[in-house]
């Protein structure tokens, strides 16, 4: 059914694009231990993306034949990820700030989703929730370390939060896709209190302020979930799809 496919696509695209941004950090981390942790997280999210895109392709073959067709042959406006995941991180503070927000939100979502009426989606969410709990804790520990660490790390952490905060509101906006799938999809507005509470606890422990900023503007109300992205996504796709597009008849 198209709604289920669209829902899987949205959740899959979040993971696919965010994993790409994490992959770009590899070999650039501050310690070897962080290299392995980062690779682990990027790999988990890539795994989630693969299952969700495969599920989307199965639920609505008109979208694309399989996970690879969906990842490598769609254009920017066909991607359904939230805009939070598109931006290139300026520094390690931004990496962990975004990861904290993303993983906390997605964990809350996946926890509810593990009771979805769609058994495949429920199973994907249950598996993913275990991974995301680790991602969230990893990010939370670093946010606390950096918030509490030195003057410089505190300033960078706060700036990172301020930079990405305008993108947070979009995570909790319900779309027609969720509305069309009662009992199967989760209304993201429902996970806002839990997400906020956890992030607030981490920020309080870290001695950081929750930013008070206006949400990033939309296009007549349309944002990432509607295929209206930031300019960053085009560059992500150019890189992600470059080899696949150059060899349209190849199998790998």
């Amino acid at each position, binding site marked *: 059914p198209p709604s289920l496919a669209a829902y899987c696509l949205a959740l899959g695209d979040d993971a696919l694009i965010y994993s790409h941004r994490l992959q770009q950090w590899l070999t650039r981390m501050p*310690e070897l231990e962080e290299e392995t942790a980062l690779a682990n997280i990027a790999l988990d999210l890539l795994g989630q993306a693969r299952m969700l895109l495969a599920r989307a392709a199965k639920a609505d073959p008109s979208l694309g034949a399989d996970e690879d067709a969906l990842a490598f042959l769609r254009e920017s406006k066909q991607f359904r990820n939230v805009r939070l995941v598109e931006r290139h991180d300026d520094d390690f503070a931004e990496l962990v700030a975004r990861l904290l927000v993303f993983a906390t939100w997605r964990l809350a979502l996946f926890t509810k989703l593990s009771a979805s009426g769609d058994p495949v989606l429920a199973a994907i969410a249950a598996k993913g929730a275990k991974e995301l709990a680790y991602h969230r804790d990893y990010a939370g520990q670093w946010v606390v370390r950096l918030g509490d660490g030195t003057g410089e790390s505190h300033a960078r952490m706060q700036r990172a939060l301020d930079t990405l905060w305008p993108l947070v509101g979009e995570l909790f906006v319900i779309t027609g896709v969720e509305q069309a799938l009662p009992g199967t999809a989760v209304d993201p507005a429902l996970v806002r209190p839990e997400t906020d509470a956890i992030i607030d606890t981490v920020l309080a422990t870290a001695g950081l302020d929750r930013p008070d900023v206006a949400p990033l503007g939309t296009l007549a109300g349309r944002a990432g979930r509607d295929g209206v992205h930031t300019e960053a996504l085009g560059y992500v796709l150019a890189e992600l799809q470059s080899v696949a597009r150059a060899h349209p008849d190849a199998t790998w």
Partner: protein
Amino acid sequence: MTETLEHHFDETIAHERRIEPRDWVPDGYRKTMIRQIAQHAHSEIIGMQPEGNWITRAPSLRRKAILLAKVQDEAGHGMYLYSAAETLGADRAELTEMLISGRQKYSSIFNYPTLTFADVGVIGWLVDGAAICNQVPLCRSSYGPYARAMVRICKEESFHQRQGYELLMTMMRGTQAQRDMVQDATNRFWWPSLMMFGPPDASSPNTAQSMAWGIKRHTNDELRQRFVDMSVPQADKLGVSLPDPELRWNAERGHYDFGAVDWDEFTQVVKGNGPCNVQRVAHRRKAHEDGAWVREAAMAHATKAKQPAELER
């Protein structure tokens, strides 16, 4: 005292038993062993770059996951190996400093660029293949922690090698452009892979001492021959040619003969003048320097976190 210790060391080596961290070892052994382990660790870390270069562009999600996991394994290997070096009294921060200041080396192969996705497969096949030839004997290294690390590393490397070869097999069954990519990558990596075994025995002065200490188990030329003998039938099966017109079976020797390696190129690369030496070290240095504020913050936080507990005492 030293005489008894030295006797114990010699006996351990002679009986092919393992030296452990608590054991006395001659200074030369310690230094040589630290250098060998550190260079191996550095190679794992620098080796993440040429392969990592293709993760974001991998043309299928399955291949992307395989490559990402492989690069993660390399970071893990680097960590075990630095730990093994630490059991001999080395300090990881110092070893990193030696790497990014160019005072310690890493495998010369990683100073060549990865130019297409086929390079990922060829690195798995030839470079990991050569590394395994080099490393399997090291699972019997006289230094226990290193030997044990090598057992695990070799197991994972064999897995990576099979994955690389499988990628190439798939590509060779694909389009002409894919087959051309595999052939091109093979042409570029063949000779540098042969160089991975180090200079010819005639110009490898440390081999004798290393073999006596059980640090090295075979000469460079022996291992190189073993690698060639192993690779030729694999190339045939794959359907690629190896870029050496002198390569042919010698029934008398029971080995493949092969052409002369360009040792001048090897010397240039070892001296720092390969296609990517500067790039690789600069990349690693930048990551390290960009991360300085993070490490400082983590330390500051750890110190603060410890203080309340200490005050209780």
